[in-house]
C-alpha cells in the first residue's frame, strides 16, 4: 500500500462533529468489534491479535498478543489490565490526541483486551497534565456504564468489567510499567526488579498486563477487519533475521521542533524520516536544513542529516545507532542549533526525571548534566567528551547497572550526539565560548 492510498485508521474520526460522543462513535460502526470479540472465545481474541503482528506502541515494541499469553493459564482470582497513559517522553503527544478526539476507540480496545486477558478490573493510569483527557474519558466511561458497555454482563454476555481512571502526579518514571504499578499502588514510582514480570506478579501482586493507549486503539480494528488486513500495512519481517518480528499496521508519528507544520500524522509503519519531514510536516522551517533528528522520543538518541532516509519502523533507527523506534516522536533540529545546547537539554531532562533508586542512573544523569553546564559556561575540557561517553556506556540495563531503562534513554542521546557530532563539541570547547541559549541552569 502506498502512502497516498492510505486512509487514516486510528485518526479516521478526528475532526468529526462530536467525535467524542458514544452516539457518533456508534454511528460510525463503533462497538461492533466488541460485540464480535464477546462472541469469540477469549483465547481466539488473543490468537487474532497475535496473528496481526501488533507490537506495543509505547516504546519497547513488544508483541502485544504474546505479552497476553504470558499470563498464567489457570488463574484463580483477579487479573489486572493497566493502561499506560502516562505519555511523557519528550516529543510524544499521540495518546493525548487519541483520547481527546476519539475516547471510545481507546475504551473499546480496553474492553476487548480486558476480555481477552480475563481482566475484570482495568486501571487507566493517566498523567495528571492531561486534564482535558481526564474529563473526556470520565464522560465517555459514564456513557458506557449507562449503555451496558461496562459494568455487569456487557452487551448481554457473561462478561463484566470495571474501568477506573487513576491520575498520576507529574513523574516521567511512571511510564515504566513497574514504576506505573508501584505508583498505582500508592507508593514511590520505583521500578521493580524483573523477574517476576507483571504477567506473573504485577499490580497488587496479581497477574497484570500493562498496555499503551495507542496499542489499545489498534485492537478494535484488528478484531473487526482481521489480522491479514493489519498486515497489509507496514514493513514485513526480515526473512534473514529470525529475531525480527516485523513492523505491521498504521502508526502515529508525532512531529515537532523546527518544521513548518508540527503535528500528528498517521501512516503505514516504515516511512523515512526525510519523507515525513518534507511531505508531511512542510519541511524544515525558515528554509534551513536539518542538522539532527530524534526518531522516537529523546531517549532514542539522534540521527544525522545523512541518516534521514532511514525507515521509521521498529528496526530502522537501530541500524543507524539509535536505541530504537521508541514512541515514533520525531523531533527536528535545524542547522542553526548547537548540539551542545540540545544535549544539555536532554541530559537535564533525565537528571530531573531519574527516580533516584539506582546509583549509576541518579549520579550519572546528574554528573553528565553538570559536565555540559561546565562546557556551556566556557569552562569545558576536551577530556569531558570522553568522560561523557564513559558515563553513557556505564549506566542502564544494557551495561546491566540499573533496574529499568531510564538510564539507557539518558545514555543514547549522549552516545549519538558525541559520536555523530564530535567535531562540534571539540570546536565548542576549544573556543571557550559561553552558550547563547537562555536555558536556565539549576532547578534540576
Amino acid at each position: 500500500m502506498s502512502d497516498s492510498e492510505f486512509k487514516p485508521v486510528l485518526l479516521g474520526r478526528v475532526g468529526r462533529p462530536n467525535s467524542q460522543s458514544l452516539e457518533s462513535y456508534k454511528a460510525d460502526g463503533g462497538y461492533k468489534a466488541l460485540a464480535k470479540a464477546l462472541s469469540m472465545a477469549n483465547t481466539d481474541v488473543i490468537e487474532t491479535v497475535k496473528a496481526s503482528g501488533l507490537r506495543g506502541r509505547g516504546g519497547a515494541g513488544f508483541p502485544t498478543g504474546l505479552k497476553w499469553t504470558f499470563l498464567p493459564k489457570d488463574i484463580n482470582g483477579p487479573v489486572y489490565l493497566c493502561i499506560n497513559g502516562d505519555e511523557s517522553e519528550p516529543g510524544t503527544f499521540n495518546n493525548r490526541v487519541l483520547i481527546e478526539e476519539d475516547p471510545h476507540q481507546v475504551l473499546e480496545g480496553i474492553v476487548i483486551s480486558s476480555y481477552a486477558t480475563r481482566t475484570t478490573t482495568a486501571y487507566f493510569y493517566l498523567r495528571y497534565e492531561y486534564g482535558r483527557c481526564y474529563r473526556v474519558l470520565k464522560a465517555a466511561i459514564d456513557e458506557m456504564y449507562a449503555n451496558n458497555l461496562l459494568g455487569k454482563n456487557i452487551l448481554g454476555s457473561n462478561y463484566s468489567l470495571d474501568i477506573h481512571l487513576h491520575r498520576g502526579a507529574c513523574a516521567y518514571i511512571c511510564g515504566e510499567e513497574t514504576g506505573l504499578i508501584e505508583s498505582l499502588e500508592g507508593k514511590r514510582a520505583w521500578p521493580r526488579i524483573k523477574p517476576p514480570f507483571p504477567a506473573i506478579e504485577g499490580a497488587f501482586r496479581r497477574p497484570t498486563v500493562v498496555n499503551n493507549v495507542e496499542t489499545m486503539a489498534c485492537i478494535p480494528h484488528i478484531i473487526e477487519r482481521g489480522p491479514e488486513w493489519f498486515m497489509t500495512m507496514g514493513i514485513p519481517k526480515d526473512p534473514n533475521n529470525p529475531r525480527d518480528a516485523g513492523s505491521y499496521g498504521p502508526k502515529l508519528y508525532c512531529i515537532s521542533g523546527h518544521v513548518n507544520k508540527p503535528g500528528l500524522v498517521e501512516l503505514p509503519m516504515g516511512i523515512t524520516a526525510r519523507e515525513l519531514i518534507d511531505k508531511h510536516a512542510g519541511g524544515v522551517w525558515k528554509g534551513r536544513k536539518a542538522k539532527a533528528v530524534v526518531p522516537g522520543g529523546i531517549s532514542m538518541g539522534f540521527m544525522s542529516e545523512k541518516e534521514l532516509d532511514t525507515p521509521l519502523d521498529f528496526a530502522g533507527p537501530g541500524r543507524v545507532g539509535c536505541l530504537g523506534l521508541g514512541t515514533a516522536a520525531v523531533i527536528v533540529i535545524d542547522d542553526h542549533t548547537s548540539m551542545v545546547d540540545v544535549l544539555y537539554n536532554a541530559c537535564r531532562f533525565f537528571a530531573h526525571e531519574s527516580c533516584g533508586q539506582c546509583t549509576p542512573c541518579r549520579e550519572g544523569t546528574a554528573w553528565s548534566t553538570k559536565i555540559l553546564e561546565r562546557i556551556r559556561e566556557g569552562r569545558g575540557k576536551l577530556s569531558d567528551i570522553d568522560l561523557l561517553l564513559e558515563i553513557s556506556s556505564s549506566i542502564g540495563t544494557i551495561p546491566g547497572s540499573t533496574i529499568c531503562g531510564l538510564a539507557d534513554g539518558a545514555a543514547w542521546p549522549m552516545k549519538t550526539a558525541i559520536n555523530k557530532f564530535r567535531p562540534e563539541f571539540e570546536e565548542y570547547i576549544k573556543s571557550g565560548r559561553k552558550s547563547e541559549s537562555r536555558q536556565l541552569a539549576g532547578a534540576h
Partner: protein
Amino acid sequence: MSELSPNAKKVIEEHIDRYPSKQAVTLPALHIVQEERGCVSNKAMKEIAEILELSPAQIHDTMSFYGFFRTEEDPLGKTRVWICRSLPCMLRGGEELLSELCERWGIQPGGTTTDGKITLELAECLGACDGAPCMLVNDELTLRVTADDVEKQVRGVQ
C-alpha cells in the same frame, strides 16, 4: 479541628472500593487535599493515613517522591502555571518564555507572586509538542503561547 473537609473525606472514602488495597488511594487522596487547600499539611497527611489505615510516614514517603505536591511551608498560589522546557519546546522558545515570565513576575521557577495569585513552575514535556512552546494552567493545556498570551490568560492583563 479536622484539616480535611467533610467533602474531601467523603470523596477519599468513595475511592476505597476501586482498589484491592487502601494504600492505592494515596495519590487520589493527595490530589483531593491539594486541590482543596493548595498544599498537603502534616496534619492532613496524618488524617489521610488514618482513613487509609497507613502510617503517616507512608503517606509522606509517597508524597515526597512526586514533586507535584506541596507542603504547608510552601503552598501553591491560586493559579498554577507550568511552562514546558523540554527539547521540542526549547527549540521553539520555551526557555525564553520561562525566563521572560520569571522577569515579569519577579519570581523564580517554583515561586509564587507576592499577592499569592500565581505559582510559576518549569515543566518537563507536557505532551503538547505540536504546539510548542506550550503551557499548562492548573490541568488545562494551551498550545503556542507567548508571554503576552500567558499574562492575558492568567492575569487578565491585555
